[in-house]
């Protein structure tokens, strides 16, 4: 009798884990694809029935629509989405919770998404104004000759002819426009939200470092230009620090141009290649 009880106990104990393993999952292990057919490329298989473990609820067809309407501020919805991700797929399928990620890594951060969106918006404005600024900047350099005093080449010791007022006005107008647009460009770069813990790396580092050249240049160039114009209007030859106006302007433009190229680097010109 005792031996029978022992045998029964043995069988029971042996079968319990097997029965646990053999339990059917709460959800059938078949999921249908859930991408929006309109948005799927040929590589995806929308609508196909695949032999996959059950997808979490937010990723079903209904959840796709839900995700579309989700705004970054709806943090509770996002958190719920991630919580659902951690639900077991089936009795056997591993879950996100099994992998050992920290909650910080897996939980949605609506505030951060908002910051990223604002950052992108501000930097797009920065980029747009930055490219627009390059136009009057280059134009100001091209018309700079008209704002200069002319020496009589046949008689180096002779009088200096002053610049035409229209030439000066055009150069000043383009320079002023450049300064205003540059200010706007800088504003959006400074106003863009910073993302904590991210150190500048790669091409953006050059782009940022070059600010130390073209920003002082953008302040100095108009000041030196005004000094030079004042000296010319007084019938003097441009002298002293004012004579550095064109050198400072050229250095500023060069740094500005390199800054634009640097942020886009490396550039691979492949317009003629079709894959």
């Amino acid at each position: 009798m005792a031996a029978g009880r022992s045998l029964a106990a043995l069988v029971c104990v042996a079968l319990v884990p097997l029965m646990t393993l053999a339990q059917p999952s709460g959800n059938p292990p078949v999921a249908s694809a859930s991408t929006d057919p309109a948005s799927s490329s040929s590589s995806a298989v929308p609508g196909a029935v695949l032999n996959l473990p059950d997808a979490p609820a937010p990723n079903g067809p209904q959840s796709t629509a839900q995700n579309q309407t989700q705004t970054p501020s709806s943090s509770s919805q996002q958190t719920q989405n991630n919580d659902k991700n951690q639900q077991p797929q089936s009795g056997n399928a591993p879950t996100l919770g099994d992998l050992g990620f920290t909650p910080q890594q897996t939980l949605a951060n609506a505030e951060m998404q908002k910051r990223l969106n604002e950052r992108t918006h501000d930097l797009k404005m920065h980029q747009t104004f930055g490219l627009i600024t390059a136009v009057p900047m280059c134009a100001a350099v091209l018309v700079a000759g008209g704002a200069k005093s002319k020496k009589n080449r046949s008689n180096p010791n002779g009088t200096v002819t002053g610049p035409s007022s229209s030439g000066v006005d055009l150069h000043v107008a383009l320079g002023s426009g450049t300064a205003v647009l540059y200010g706007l460009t800088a504003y959006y770069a400074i106003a863009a939200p910073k993302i904590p813990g991210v150190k500048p790396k790669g091409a953006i580092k050059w782009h940022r470092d070059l600010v130390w050249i073209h920003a002082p240049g953008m302040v100095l160039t108009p000041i030196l230009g005004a000094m030079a114009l004042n000296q010319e209007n007084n019938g003097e030859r441009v002298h002293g620090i004012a004579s550095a106006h064109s050198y400072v302007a050229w250095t500023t433009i060069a740094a500005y141009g390199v800054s634009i190229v640097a942020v886009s680097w490396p550039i691979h010109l492949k317009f003629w290649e079709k894959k």
Partner: protein
Amino acid sequence: MKFAAVLLLAVAPVMLHAQNQWVLTQSTLTWNVTHPMHEVAGTSHAAKGKGNCSAGQCDFLIAVPVNTFDSGDSNRDLHTLEVVRGAQYPMVIVRTHLAQAALDQPTTDADLEVQFAGQTAHYAHVPLHRTSHGNDVEITGTIPASCSDFKIDRPSFLTVPIRNEIPVNVDATWKPE
């Protein structure tokens, strides 16, 4: 003696089960973006994964935080994080279900379910190549992902958007647990 037998019988199925578990030990996931003026790749080594096999069937799960992909340019990485809604949906999750016998094949066609940017896409018959390194198994392949699969607005440079295709190269080394 009886106690030992009971214990052995009780633990045996668990041991058998344990032999059919796989864990991801090393991985390199790389997204590739193409633009007429740029070719960029972002790589992450931070993926974690598990595979459970029973009754001849295996379920694998790989997940990787979106913010661990590094393209070598912090500005680009932050912009990438923004366009793929990486703070709102911080994980890329890949699931697949395979017959256990397929694990021994040099090449397997896998049906993958990919959750990314708040969307789920399925990729059927993705060829995965298997290489053994002792006990470890290295799986390589490319997921033919695209921006439209995940409703990602394609970033543009000089008003020209990137190509829709953003194939993701996978190199994952698995170890039996």
